[in-house]
């Protein structure tokens, strides 16, 4: 075991517990009626710094810090360019869901994405399908993140796999379960700052070792000339550029754990600040760590596990304690994605399943306590699955991100901005989009028509949504008032008995 590397990681974990405890006390003191909102979206009080980092950390996950450098190590600079398309994610997410999403969530007290869909489409089928998608895809994705992260750590720290899994999944379950969204958001921020500072330190150390950028380029061009070509070993074409930009640039807002952040901020000013600082920070992350993957080729010409490119660079060029601090960061990237997912799944189970079908009259404080219990339970389930990942899981993982995008992107935007949008369209588009995606990746590659399947799946989802909108009946008046009217109109709605309108 390498204690000099482990000690900063342990300190970091203790810090997470402190944050969790602080957030737990904050929730305890929240007024009745606001406890559940405090637990799942931080009581809509996020300021700009926390908003930026929690948005980026939830969206970026381990891919940015481990996966992309690994691809760049193999495929060269072209892969870094491709993943840079995620840079404007904060701007696009907050602008597309927009202030309307934030205002609606305050008017109707939404704390989950499914809350929004339930009120907008008033269809049990839509709600059930959305909940199912969230639970299945996100649980699978969480397990995959832990498995990947723990395997990397095994090779670096020498600690055994089960111990690592239990430690990390346990830590995340506890601080997320008790601390809720605020613990999640604040730890994302701490982690983001570590990543930024750590990335700069790493680059300085690497350039000192190599003697500057010119020797770096010479060594790279000398020993691995193909890495700097376009497309080079990556083999990327124009269609891929568009598809990746669609999936990681435009559609990140549709991931439930990202979208939820668009209800969590304090005011317009906060959103605006996050919108223009977010792209810069995300670009620095992606470019810094991605290009580091290419440079790693100079240091380690033939790694077996390409995902070890950046971790190896860290251990090799930085002194032990500093290396540990920096390695805590990719782990934190995993944790920060997983913690936000746990909360989304927990919110879905409590609000969209438990309260919908079993206990509709649960009090606010009780609901948030049930939430804590469910969150910890999900953490434990993920832990057990990660110890011995079932084979079926990898199929779900492959579809997870694109599947969620195919399910949620169109109903979210359509429901927000198109009056005709109705339950028929939402249902057709959710089922059709995800079915097309799975069919074209698994069984019928011809359906993808030579481009990444996500593009066609989205086109199908949009067409079905519009088709359903015109074939089915227009949404009832009270839904339109709730989603377009002033608060005064909504209040007037409450005065008139609504019996029978719902079905």
């Amino acid at each position: 075991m390498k204690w000099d590397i482990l000690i900063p990681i342990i300190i970091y974990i203790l810090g997470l517990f402190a944050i969790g405890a602080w957030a737990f006390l904050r929730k305890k003191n929240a007024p009745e009626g606001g406890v559940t909102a405090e637990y799942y979206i931080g009581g809509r009080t996020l300021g700009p710094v926390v908003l930026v980092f929690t948005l980026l950390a939830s969206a970026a996950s381990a891919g940015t810090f481990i996966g992309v450098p690994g691809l760049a190590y193999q495929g060269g600079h072209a892969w870094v360019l491709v993943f840079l398309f995620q840079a404007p994610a904060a701007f696009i997410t907050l602008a597309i869901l927009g202030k309307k999403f934030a205002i609606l969530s305050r008017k109707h007290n939404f704390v989950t994405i499914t809350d929004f869909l339930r009120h907008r489409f008033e269809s049990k089928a839509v709600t059930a399908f959305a909940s199912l998608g969230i639970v299945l895809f996100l649980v699978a994705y969480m397990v995959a993140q832990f498995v990947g992260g723990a395997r990397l750590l095994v090779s670096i720290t020498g600690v055994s796999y089960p111990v690592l899994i239990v430690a990390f999944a346990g830590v995340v379950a506890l601080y997320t379960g008790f601390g809720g969204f605020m613990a999640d958001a604040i730890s994302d921020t701490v982690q983001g700052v570590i990543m930024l500072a750590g990335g700069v330190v790493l680059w300085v150390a690497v350039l000192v070792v190599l003697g500057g950028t010119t020797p770096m380029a010479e060594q790279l061009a000398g020993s691995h000339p193909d890495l700097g070509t376009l497309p080079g070993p990556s083999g990327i074409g124009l269609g891929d550029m568009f598809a990746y930009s669609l999936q990681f640039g435009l559609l990140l807002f549709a991931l439930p754990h990202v979208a939820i952040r668009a209800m969590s901020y304090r005011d317009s000013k906060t959103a605006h600040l996050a919108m223009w600082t977010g792209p810069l920070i995300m670009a620095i992350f992606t470019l810094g760590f991605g290009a580091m993957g290419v440079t790693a080729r100079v240091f380690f010409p033939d790694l077996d596990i390409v995902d070890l490119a950046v971790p190896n660079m860290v251990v090799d060029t930085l002194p032990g304690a500093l290396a540990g601090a920096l390695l805590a960061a990719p782990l934190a990237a995993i944790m920060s994605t997983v913690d936000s997912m746990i909360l989304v799944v927990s919110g879905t189970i409590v609000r969209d399943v438990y309260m919908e079908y079993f206990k509709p009259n649960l009090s606010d404080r009780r609901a948030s306590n049930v939430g804590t219990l469910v969150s910890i339970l999900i953490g434990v389930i993920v832990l057990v699955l990660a110890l011995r990942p079932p084979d079926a899981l990898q199929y779900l993982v492959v579809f997870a991100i694109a599947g969620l995008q195919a399910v949620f992107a169109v109903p979210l935007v359509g429901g927000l901005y198109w009056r005709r949008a109705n339950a028929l369209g939402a249902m057709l588009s959710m089922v059709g989009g995800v079915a097309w995606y799975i069919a074209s990746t698994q069984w019928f590659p011809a359906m993808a028509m030579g481009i990444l399947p996500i593009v066609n799946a989205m086109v199908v989802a949009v067409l079905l949504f519009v088709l359903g909108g015109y074939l089915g009946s227009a949404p009832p008046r009270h839904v339109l008032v709730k989603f377009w009217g002033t608060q005064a109109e909504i209040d007037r709605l409450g005065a008139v008995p609504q019996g029978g309108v719902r079905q």
Partner: protein
Amino acid sequence: MRPMSSSDSQRSAPVNDFEEDPRYAASVREAWIAGAYWVVYTIVVTAVAWTLGYGKAAEEIRYVLGFPEWFLWSAGVATLVFCLIPYVLIRRYFVEVSLSPHGEDGDATTRTGDRTTLHDEAGDTA
């Protein structure tokens, strides 16, 4: 305003007999701006990289500041420019509105047509 019976709403156009929240119009515009931004961003970054670097043999690639020239211009310069553009878009076109259900400052948010004054007035309400 005309009375609506529930059967009337079947297959007809959505009703429009209530007062709209004026803050939503700005959201629609801002969403379109973000969509347009994404299209231009994707095209420009791709075009720069492809024009400068696509299909070139390894010997032809020039390195500047440690990176291939095409990469420096697309992933570096073009991306940096597009990371700064949101600042300009927000300053010029995005509106600061109250997010509370009633909207604290009704006046400032109703005149969505006049962007500059709207922006200035709403600045101190947030």
